[in-house]
């Protein structure tokens, strides 16, 4: 596909999709969706007391919650009867709690650390609304199978992080609560710009579940990497098979003390698979041009694949 063709394709596709999306949404809205500012129901279901009652005692958390997106939606602009329940849409009916003077918690899910409610039940509250898009794969995902609660990583009641209402100010701190080794790896000499704030864990992973067991956003390791490193995608005339099968054959994306995020320094990395004849099999001396600077890729700079007719040695 030539450059002009690609530009035309993009120029046609992008506004088409956006336009379709907006048109579909707009036309569907007409007469099908109630106005956003639906007033809270004046008659509450049995056992519910209403958010204003909760506010009487829980003033500070109520104010904090009001400042969050969910709070604004539930307390001021509910879209349906469930959201209109406010606090009780997640915590459950509060009548018994109020009538006991705050000592009874029957039927309530507090989401606190000591909450005896099973994790599955607590998560089920969130999934009533959030089991869509990125959370489609939540059930059966590694985090879900290890009984991770939504509230282990998210704080619903207050804005601690700038986005996504995380439990910590940044994603690295949130994920690093359990993934200590990965957090330490970010400090290695060769690293992607996570600790500089240019990337986050969710640049590559979706912790809510994906089609890969490592929670990668792409359909495979390589598809994930090609999102940014599309120059490695090919297909090339001359391929390097372990490159095509998995970038992680040679690289550790979380950080390495070897250049270019390599797992092992060159030439040893290459010599683990290349025992042909002559210089690939030579153990080499430190001062050799096959070792210093960029070692094998001093010459074989097309190591990810070459499109040159005479490039089968990946040096053209």
């Amino acid at each position, binding site marked *: *596909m030539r*450059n002009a063709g690609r530009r035309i394709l*993009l120029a046609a*596709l992008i506004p088409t*999709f956006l336009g379709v999306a*907006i048109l579909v*949404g707009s036309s569907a809205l007409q007469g099908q969706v109630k106005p*956003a500012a639906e007033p809270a129901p004046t008659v509450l279901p049995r056992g519910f007391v209403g958010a204003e009652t909760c506010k009487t005692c829980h003033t500070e958390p109520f104010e904090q919650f009001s400042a969050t*997106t969910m709070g*604004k939606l539930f307390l001021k*602009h509910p879209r349906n009867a469930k959201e209109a329940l406010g606090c009780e849409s997640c915590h459950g009916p509060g009548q018994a709690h109020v009538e006991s003077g705050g000592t009874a918690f029957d039927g309530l899910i507090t989401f606190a650390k*000591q909450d005896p409610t*099973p994790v599955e039940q607590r998560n089920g509250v969130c999934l009533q609304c959030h089991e*869509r*898009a990125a959370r489609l794969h939540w*059930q059966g995902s590694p985090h879900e*199978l*290890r*009984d991770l609660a939504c509230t282990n990583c998210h704080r619903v009641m207050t804005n601690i992080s700038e986005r996504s209402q995380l439990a910590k100010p940044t994603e690295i701190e949130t994920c690093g609560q359990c993934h*200590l*080794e990965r*957090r330490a790896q970010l*400090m*290695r000499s060769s690293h992607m710009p996570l600790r*500089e*704030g240019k990337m986050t864990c969710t640049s590559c992973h979706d912790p809510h579940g994906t*089609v890969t067991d490592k929670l990668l956003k792409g*359909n495979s390791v390589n598809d994930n990497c090609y999102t*940014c490193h599309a*120059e490695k*995608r*090919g*297909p*090339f005339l001359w*391929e390097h098979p372990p490159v*095509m*099968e998995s970038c992680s*054959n040679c690289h550790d994306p979380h950080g390495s*003390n070897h250049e270019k995020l390599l797992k092992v*320094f060159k030439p*040893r990395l290459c010599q683990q*698979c290349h*025992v*042909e*004849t002559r210089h690939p*099999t*030579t*153990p080499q*001396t*430190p001062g050799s041009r096959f070792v*210093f*600077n960029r070692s094998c890729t*001093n*010459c074989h*700079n097309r190591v990810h694949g070459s*499109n*040159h007719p*005479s490039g*089968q040695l990946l040096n*053209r």
Partner: protein
Amino acid sequence: MRLVIKCMLSSLLLTGVLLLPSPAMAEVEFLGLKASGEGEAGGRIFVDRPPKADRAKFEEYRDLSPGVFLERLRLRFESQDESYSLVLGAMDAGREDQRFSLYGSKLGWVTFGFEWDQIPHVFSGTARSPYLQGPRDVFGVPDSLQTTLQGASAAAQPGILQSFLVTAPGVDLQTRWDTARLLLNFTAIPDWDLRAEYAQTMKTGDRAMGMVFGSPGGNLVELPGSIDQTVHDFRVTAGLVREWWQLQLGYNLSIFENDLDALIADNPLRVTDAPLGPTGTSAPAHGRVSLAPDNTAQTVSLTGGLNLPWRSRLTGTFAYGWRSQDQAFLPHTINSAIVNPGLTLPADDLDGDVRTLLANLRFTSRPFRTITLGARYRFYDFDDQTSTLVFPAHVVTDTTLITEAVASSRFPYTKQNAGADVAWRPLTPLSTKVGFEWEQWNRDNDHREAPLTNDYTPKIALDYTPVDWLFLRASYAYSWRRISGYNTFAHLAHTVLEEETLQGEVPQSQSTLLRKYDEADRDRNRADLLLQFAPFDTLTFTPSLSFRDDNYTDSPLGLQDDTSWAVGFDVAWSPTDRISLVASYMREEFDARMRSQFRQPPGQLDNPTFEWVAKNRDSVNTAGAGVDAALIPKKLDFRLAWTFSTARGKMTAFNPVTPSGGTSAQNTSATAMNFPTITDRLNQLEASLKYHITTASYVRFRYIFEKYDITDFRTDDIQPFMGGTDIWLGAQIRDYTAQFFTITLGYRF
């Protein structure tokens, strides 16, 4: 001094502007909208700034220039009923690493966003090159140099080159990625999710690229090759959500464009192409390397989720993708002296065509409160449908004509994964899980050594919370990978046309004893342990341990074993509500052992004394500590953060038996020796005092200290001239020490 005055004046001005009648956090209105926001700006003053040559690691992904800077700005405008909002964000505005964002939303209906992000990447501050860059990545040296070197003897050439390279000017080896991103999220219709995203990343700059003339003994030049690439990424998803099922359709288009097809450079040793000799060897005046070709990838995916009785759920994804690449081929060589009918290209381009198919099914069920069942299956097919091209002849590094046909092989594969597990919670605080995983790779029979590999992994995991302040998570997995057979002819097969006389008559170019580690039998043990002590709400102590051991059981040559372990902890403690302390430490070790054999045709292809063993040991220590304290509550805050990371890479090698039986030169070539240890160390300290002038404004004083030390024999002393007739960039990574202060004013309204 001028800089200091500028910073002070800027700060005062900013203070004056920001300290306009402050409503002390009361609501602010702007054009009838509720407005809020925060910003922090000030100046950076260096006590010790690394010189440019030492600055590569310091500013690897950042711009930390002295002077005035806007650290961050966030403005939020909302309608009176808070249903509409517009958020404008900026970080490091005006700097190489600046970032902007604009988000607008109607609550519960639609969100749109725009982001602009610049990511610099500095590789080295010491690179020098005598090459002059012409248009479109063409590099030249003076003809006079080439003429002189062409006419000089081999013994004289290094001296001539050394004199010339003394005055090689500096070059910037850095790139920058600029990304513009648009996104639209539409959620107005209760059961629908519509999302569209477009990102364009423009990559520009220069990075080191090598070019060799005559392989492997010819001269080599290293160049500051240009990068001028664009990645377009467009994604759209539409999801339908119902109480019992969900469906999502997605499309992704990714286009890679490279404005540069090739890198061309003069060979400093030749001003003219040498005539082709009887052995098919010439000596070129230029070289040409191909750069990454334009390519396109599209993927369509359909995902469905179905809630079933007995608290069960089935999720399935099907995705089909296709990739294409049809960039016109370069000619075989830029060497005008090499002409041969066999160099006629069999096609104008690759017409690359790859299809991928993904099918992923996952089933979970909780038939009883204490039992969870899980099963999953994944199928990934990489079908390279590109035609094989046969080249009757080719040219090695623009130097040597080879009139032997080669075929461009394709390497399709299929990968399957399946697994099942059962989790049982006999008691509320105790959960155990046993499971089994299977992975199979099915590769091309002729062109990959192990057409079929199967990996089996039984595993067990335990989660235990005996008391509410103690949590234990442990897991162990043992896996064994077995291959169906190892085709030792595969390496030869994928580059040379099959001949009837091939097997048994032509020496294979690859040792038959080699087992490539991604295609070899392997036994693996893996264990992980995480503990979390939280005796009080204000204290958490989390130690962790992990261990992995890979043993390549049937690999006479190649990777033998690969072991790693990590032990560490994390502590967070808030003894009072005015102070919180954190500390962490992680120790990691990686040990890899490989075995190889020096081989030189025709007579030294299987000399057992030429075997050598290499061990690589990497040791990494990472530590951190920090304090956050309210020295005067709501008035004066103190923060201290320290991070330390040190790594050591030890590379040893030896011969189990002293090499013998070859010529003296061969015996020497087969002799293995240790390499000098590579070390690096990073020390970062930040101390800050934040004084709240009012409830809305504050001033922050920060002191930052950073020290980076590296010892790497491969680059420490590299210069453009390192002997012989090679030209290097001399791209070192150097130690640095940096100390600087920042004084910033912040305002929140």
